[in-house]
């Protein structure tokens, strides 16, 4: 905060209210400024969530969902093999996606952080453009690439490598990985790039002058200092992947569905809202636990601002 030093302004005025950093009190009353937003978030953000938590203990039958207090839904979430397997599979896919995006994003983020002036502005902008469009579209684009009439099958047939279109390119776990990586890479590239940007070039120079080889400079200076960015990116990509719905639905087929699809089907197809709530709360719990653990290293608000100021 830019504190106005008292000696710059004559301290003769009576209207000015002092606060302890020596500046003036910001205009407005906090109560009225925060009121509308806080009210909105309490009613439409927190209350629906609390309601879902409550409903996760209710019972759904074919006649509807009625109030109850039973742990049956949670027992079913944990005990039923189908849901447990689905959860582990989803965790596995999310972890793998996170790992893949770190590996493929880091070099590009590093290169971007090395560039200067207009060249840098151009390539950074070029990195963002595709992500300013809906992820539904970015998942959809893989259908005409991997499908029966897709680009790959067509190219392979034209080259005479295959006679019949191959079916296994789409609707499997591999296609889900590809889609998730494609849709979420930016959330890894951006924070890593921002943390690399913050590294003082003098540190790299100092290490080099002291005789460190490039590999050592990278391993002992650059990599540790870009850690907040990597962490922020990993949390983002993991959180997004673990709750993926669109990508597995479009590209995964029956074998590639994830937890998000299981949850959605309780509401869109089975009409089992109570059980669906329990599944949802389980997913939220995993997310919150992850954020709680990572808060040892990075504050929640910094995760969503790409690891700045952390």
């Amino acid at each position, binding site marked *: 905060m830019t504190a106005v030093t008292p000696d710059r302004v004559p301290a003769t005025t009576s*209207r000015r209210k002092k606060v302890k950093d020596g500046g003036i009190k910001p205009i407005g009353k906090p109560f009225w400024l925060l009121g509308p937003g806080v009210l909105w978030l309490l009613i439409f953000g927190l209350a629906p969530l609390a309601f879902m938590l409550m409903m996760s203990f209710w019972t759904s039958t074919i006649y509807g969902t009625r109030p109850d207090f039973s742990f049956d839904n949670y027992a079913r979430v944990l005990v039923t093999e189908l849901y447990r397997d689905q959860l582990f599979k989803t965790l596995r896919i999310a972890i793998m996606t996170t790992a893949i995006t770190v590996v493929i994003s880091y070099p590009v983020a590093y*290169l971007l952080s090395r560039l200067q002036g207009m060249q840098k502005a151009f390539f950074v902008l070029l*990195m963002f453009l595709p992500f300013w469009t809906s992820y539904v579209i970015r998942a959809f684009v893989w259908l005409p690439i991997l499908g029966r009439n897709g680009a790959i099958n067509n190219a392979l047939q034209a080259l005479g490598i295959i006679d019949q279109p191959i079916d296994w390119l789409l609707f499997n776990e591999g296609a889900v990985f590809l889609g998730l990586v494609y849709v979420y890479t930016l959330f890894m590239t*951006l924070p890593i790039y921002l943390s690399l940007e913050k590294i003082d070039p003098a540190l790299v120079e100092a290490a080099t002058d002291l005789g460190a080889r*490039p590999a050592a400079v990278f391993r002992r200076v650059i990599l540790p200092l870009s850690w907040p960015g990597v962490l922020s990116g990993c949390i983002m990509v993991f959180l997004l992947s673990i*709750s993926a719905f*669109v990508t597995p639905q479009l590209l995964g087929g029956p074998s590639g569905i994830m937890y998000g699809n299981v*949850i959605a089907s309780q509401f869109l197809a089975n009409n089992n809202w109570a059980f669906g709530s329990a599944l949802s709360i389980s*997913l939220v719990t995993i997310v919150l636990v992850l954020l709680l653990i990572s808060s040892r290293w990075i504050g929640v608000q910094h995760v969503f601002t790409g690891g700045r100021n952390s």
Partner: protein
Amino acid sequence: MTSIAAGKANIAKPHARKPERRHRPYGGYLSALWIYAGAFYTFLYGPLLMIVLLSFNDSEIVGFPFQGFTVRWYEVVFESPALLKALGNSLGVGFLAAAIATTLALSLAMGFRHQFRGKPIVLYLILVPIIIPGIIGGIVLLIFFGFSGIRSSLWTTVLVAHVNWVLPFAFLTLFPRLHGFDRALEEAAMDLGAKPWEIFTRIVFPIIRPGVIATALFSFSLSFDEFIRTIFVSGFDRTIPVQFWGLIVDELAPELPAMAVLIIVISIFSSLIGFYFMRRASKSAPT
């Protein structure tokens, strides 16, 4: 989606750090990095360019081979009442959600300039809609409004879902604008007897105006692209992404690529204008 708005804010102010002596500890590896980056950008752009190509493909199936150039799929898109309705819905809810979220976020950010008790708690409350997985952000509203007896429609449930989704980003984009600027002007105005409201309208707001416009545009673009929360509460009022989804799931409709191109153009256009204002904002009010 999630940190895109924050990202939009970030790239707007590239660090203007220039080392006196350009040091390249990785000089030798740099060309390898460029080749890799080339592959990476091809991975990013290849599929999108292919969709542009397919949108002109004179074929009933979404795919190859390329059967000849046509613009008829664009005609189909622009002549379909359902699509135009969805486009109108998306534009309308996008404008309104952006206006509400930006206003609420501006007010919250003004409040955050004060010291008050429970500040971290309010911050967490603001972040709730982006911490909660998107699919659950839609479902909670479905059951909440379902049990409140409010029917799903564009101007009720969809609007609420979109404001929820956009508000945290609007706050995270605006807050640094208000946090960073020199308060001497405000102090001077106060000394000269200006009322708080005058200080806001004549000093604070003009300074942060480019940031506010940028925030509104990013908010619009986030709302325009929102799908996962909307699908659960859209009822009979489809937005563009929901309409698009319906066309994929029902039958891979041949006009999908043309529609995708149209959506991409609108989103990128609004984001680019927002990006332009963000750059102006970071110039006029250096943090």
